[in-house]
C-alpha cells in the first residue's frame, strides 16, 4: 500500500511547530512515531496536505520527576523508554504496566506517549482499505450519514483503543496543550469527547506537548490490565486501570478510581465505584459489587471483532482481579 503524496516539514523546535500549525493546522497531521498515522494514510482514511515530523523536537523527549510536583513526561518520549524508565517503574508502576502492553517491541520503540494518547478511534467497518469501504455507504466517521457497524446508528461508536490513557487518567494526569497563543493544562480525561468521529478536544493549531502526573499519597497502588486476543500487537478489546489508596491491615479505602478503556469512543471513569468503595474496608463482597458496576458502565458495540457481551464480561473480570490483588 502506498502512502498518498504530502508535503513534509521537520520543525526544529516546539515554537516553530506551533507557528506552522497556526497557519496550516487544518491541513496538517502531526507525525511522531507515525505508527497510527501512516497505517491510516495507507488505508486511504487520511490524506493531509502537510505532515509535520515532531519526533525530534528537543524539548519533548524527557521524563522528569520532582518530589514536589510529581512526574512530567514529554509527548515525544517513546513508549519503550517509558516502560524501562527506573523512576516510572518505581514510583508509578501502573504506567509501566500499561506501557508494556502497547503493541510490540518495535511499536513501543517507535511510538510515543503523545501519540498513544492521540490514536484515532477504531472500528472494523472504518479501518479498511478504500476498496472495502467503497462497497458500503460512507460512514459517519468518514463524513457521511450512516453508521455501518450499527444499522440505523446516528452517532459514531468507533472505539478508543489506547492503553496508556486509562492508566494515566486513573492517576489524575493532566496534559499540556500548546499553541502560539496559549498553553492550556487540562485533565487528560477532558481530552476525550466520547464522539467516535471526533474523539479528541484539541484544536488544529495545538500540540499535545506533555503529560503531568501528580504525586501519589502513601499506600497508593495503580494497576492496568488489558484483554486482547493475542499477547502482543493487538489493540485492547477491554482495558482496566485502577488506583487504590488503602490504609492499614483492614484495607480501609481512602481513594478508589477505576477507568475502563477500549469499550467506547473514549476511556471512562466508573465514578460509581469510587463512591461505593471510598471510606469502606475493601472486601470480597464490595469487590463483586464494584465489578458489577463496571460491567454496567461498559457499553461496547459490535464493531471490534469480539462480542460486546464478552468484552463487558472481561471488563468485569479485570476489575475484580485488579481489586482482589489489593486485598
Amino acid at each position, binding site marked *: 500500500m502506498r502512502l498518498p503524496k*504530502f508535503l*513534509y516539514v521537520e520543525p526544529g523546535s516546539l515554537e516553530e511547530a506551533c507557528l506552522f500549525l497556526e497557519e496550516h493546522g487544518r491541513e496538517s497531521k502531526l507525525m511522531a512515531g*507515525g*505508527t497510527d498515522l*501512516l*497505517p491510516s494514510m495507507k*488505508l486511504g482514511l487520511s490524506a493531509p496536505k502537510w505532515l509535520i515530523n515532531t*519526533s525530534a523536537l528537543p524539548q519533548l523527549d524527557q521524563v522528569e520527576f520532582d518530589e514536589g510536583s510529581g512526574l512530567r513526561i514529554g509527548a515525544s518520549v517513546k513508549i519503550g523508554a517509558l516502560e524501562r524508565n527506573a523512576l516510572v517503574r518505581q514510583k508509578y508502576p501502573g504506567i509501566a504496566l500499561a506501557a508494556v502492553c502497547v503493541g510490540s517491541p518495535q511499536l513501543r*520503540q517507535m511510538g510515543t506517549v503523545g501519540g498513544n494518547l492521540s490514536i484515532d478511534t477504531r472500528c472494523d467497518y472504518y479501518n479498511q482499505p478504500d476498496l472495502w469501504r467503497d462497497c458500503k455507504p460512507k460512514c459517519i466517521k468518514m463524513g457521511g450519514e450512516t453508521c455501518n457497524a450499527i444499522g440505523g446508528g446516528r452517532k459514531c461508536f468507533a472505539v478508543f483503543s489506547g492503553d496508556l490513557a486509562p492508566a494515566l487518567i486513573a492517576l489524575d494526569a493532566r496534559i499540556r496543550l500548546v499553541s502560539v497563543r496559549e498553553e492550556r493544562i487540562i485533565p487528560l480525561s477532558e481530552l476525550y469527547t466520547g464522539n467516535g468521529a471526533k474523539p479528541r478536544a484539541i484544536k488544529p493549531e495545538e500540540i499535545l506537548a506533555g503529560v503531568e502526573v501528580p504525586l501519589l499519597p502513601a499506600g497508593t497502588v495503580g494497576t492496568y490490565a488489558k484483554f486482547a486476543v493475542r499477547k502482543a*500487537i493487538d489493540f485492547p478489546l477491554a482495558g482496566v486501570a485502577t488506583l487504590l489508596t488503602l490504609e492499614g491491615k483492614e484495607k480501609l479505602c481512602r481513594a478508589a478510581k477505576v477507568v475502563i478503556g477500549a469499550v467506547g469512543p473514549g476511556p471512562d471513569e466508573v465514578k460509581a465505584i469510587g463512591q461505593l468503595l471510598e471510606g469502606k474496608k475493601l472486601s470480597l463482597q464490595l469487590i463483586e459489587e464494584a465489578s458489577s458496576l463496571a460491567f454496567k458502565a461498559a457499553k461496547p458495540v459490535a464493531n471490534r471483532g469480539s462480542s460486546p457481551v464478552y468484552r463487558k464480561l472481561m471488563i468485569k473480570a479485570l476489575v475484580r482481579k485488579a481489586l482482589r490483588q489489593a486485598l
Partner: protein
Amino acid sequence: MKEQVTLEINGESHELLVEPEKTLLEVLREDLGLTGTKQSCDMGTCGACTVLLNNKPALACLTLAVACKGKQITTIEGLRKGEELHPLQSSFIERGAIQCGMCTPGMILSAKALLDENAHPTEAEVRTAISGNLCRCTGYTKIVEAILAASAAD
C-alpha cells in the same frame, strides 16, 4: 517534491533523492535492491520489515525514508562480516528455525537487538523480544531455541 537525503545503511552512506511519501521499506527494496527486508502486511502488524534504527528494532514500512537522516540503519544484509555469518544467522540455519524464510530477517534483527542489550535472556524474555514478529510456518519453537543457543554460545 523529492528531497535529498543521506542514509547510512550497514555502515555505508547512500545519497538519495526521494519523495517524502516513500517508506524506508520501499527505498531499501526498490531503490537500493536490499530485498532482505521483507514487505508483508505493510502496516505494522507483522514485523517482517523489522530493521534496526540506531540499534533498536523499528518497522521500515512505517518509517519515512526522509525521517532517517543521521540514523544508523542496519538491515539483515549488514549482519555478516565478509563470508562469516552472524552467530544468530548460523544458529537459525543449524537449528532448522527457517522454513519459508519470510519472517527470518525480521526475527534475527529483533533477536540481535535483544542480545545486544541482554546477552543471556530467559526464554520468556526471548519470546517477548520476538512478540512483534509473526511466523506462519514454524510455530516459533525452533526460533526460540536458536536464539537461546546463540546467546549461550557467547
